[in-house]
């Protein structure tokens, strides 16, 4: 009888210990995922800031040559200001503005092709290279962010995180998306032809 009671007690204690251990592991996992998202967003913000800092130099370098593109350059400057103001206000608005900024920069790059004097300018070429490098890093940072957010969203929506996440005040986060027209993969053969 005594042995039976002590076995029952051992069983209950064992189950309780497993639940507590499971709770610790789940809590730590959710915290780690959340911190990873913050880390990834920090990386994105760092490259966005670098890009913001390059834009005034770019506008200064091209406006002398691209006199007829004044409207485009003014939109670029205005959008840059709005994007800077949106920093720290949450990712949705920041992502939307940064997406528009990317499209405008691509337009500037495209229109610059029509100005041979501009294309020969060393200053412009260096800025172009710097912007490309930042865009490349930004693309990688966005992918990192999206992966971190996906892992985080999975952790808070799957069991057992689903039970603990509301208690910890953790909610779903948005990912970076690109507009439909940018999803088309370019034909590499044509680009290098």
């Amino acid at each position: 009888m005594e042995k039976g009671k002590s076995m029952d007690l051992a069983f209950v204690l064992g189950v309780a210990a497993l639940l507590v251990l499971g709770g610790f592991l789940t809590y730590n996992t959710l915290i780690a995922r959340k911190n990873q998202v913050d880390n990834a967003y920090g990386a994105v913000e760092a490259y966005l800031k670098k890009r913001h800092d390059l834009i005034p130099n770019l506008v200064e370098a091209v406006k002398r040559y691209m006199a007829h593109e004044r409207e485009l350059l003014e939109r670029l400057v205005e959008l840059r200001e709005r994007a800077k103001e949106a920093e720290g206000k949450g990712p949705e608005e920041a992502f939307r503005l940064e997406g528009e900024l990317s499209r405008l920069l691509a337009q500037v790059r495209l229109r610059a092709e029509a100005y041979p004097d501009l294309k020969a300018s060393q200053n412009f070429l260096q800025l172009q290279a710097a912007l490309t490098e930042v865009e490349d890093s930004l693309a990688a940072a966005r992918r990192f962010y999206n992966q971190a957010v996906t892992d985080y969203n999975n952790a808070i929506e799957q069991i057992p995180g689903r039970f603990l996440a509301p208690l910890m005040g953790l909610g779903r986060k948005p990912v970076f998306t690109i507009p439909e027209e940018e999803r088309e993969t370019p034909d590499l053969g044509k680009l290098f032809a």
Partner: protein
Amino acid sequence: MERLSEDLAPLEAHRQRTLLLALLLFLATPFWAYLLFLGFQALELRGVGLLYALLVALPPGLALGLLRALRLRLKRALVAPLAEALGFTYRPVPGLPWHEAEASGLLPRADRYEGEDYLEGTVGPFAFRSSDIALYRKVRTKNGTYHVRLLSGTLYRFALPFAVPGETRLAPQGAPLQAGGASRGTVLLFLALFWGVLLLLLALGEPVEGSAGQVPPVVGFMALVSLPFLLWGLGWRFGGRERVALESSSFERLFDVYGDQIEARKLLTPRVQEALVAFRKALGKPFWAAFRGNEAWFLIQGRNRLEPSLLRPLSQETLRDYVETWTRDLMEAKRLLEAVGLDLEARKRGLFGGEGPTPGTL
């Protein structure tokens, strides 16, 4: 190559003679054993089991020796001329020096290193050096010390005409970062078995004399010591490199990536991930890779290149097949590195703009 073509006929004749002789020796072994048995009986020899075994082993031992000599001769006669014809430099021994192999970062600590079949040359714009390697670890037992093989395979070092961002390492999915080590799966399986047996003993065992409960202190100590390994197996890091999770599910099924989160993604775009999956499928074997500065390293486990078959008749067609087989890895690696270079160049020119997420990650 011309000299090789002239030597083919006598080499083929020698191959056939040696194989026939080896076969006869193997077939003769049971008869030889029986004759020896009769002889020992006639001489009334007792207690000479070891001598009997040694004498019985003579014919098959001789056959194996002949086959080994044939293998070395074929290798000497075929590999060097074929490599020369392809514009490569070949030497049977030594392989890549240890300090160079170790610089890849793909190899674990070892007590003995062997390298052979050193091959050097250029494929397309990529210069390479390579070697078949084997690593051993010393094991001490009460019967003596011997070496256990940790891994064997082929190690390639490519010089790239472009620079890759940061340092990124790839390992087969579930495998350790360095080839030849214990994988998480193996450690977790071992721990699961250990804990399963421990719990069974607790549930069914009798109290142990001299200890407070049913668990002997040494078992409790082992259980405690196993906890860090359990945590490591579950993914907690004790320093070392960070794992990078990528978007492509087919890529993630085949590889684990380690490195900086941003730099690794700058190298491993969806296009490069596809190229790596294709490379893995073409190789047919798991491999480890490291990309660093202007270098790329590949370690293909279980690969033993440049081994002519003893059973295959020697002819011009055979030589062509050997060339194709022995250079297949190089051609596939060239294809992969060209894809990496093209992708880096295209992004440097700003041709792809922002990558954005791969559809399906939302």
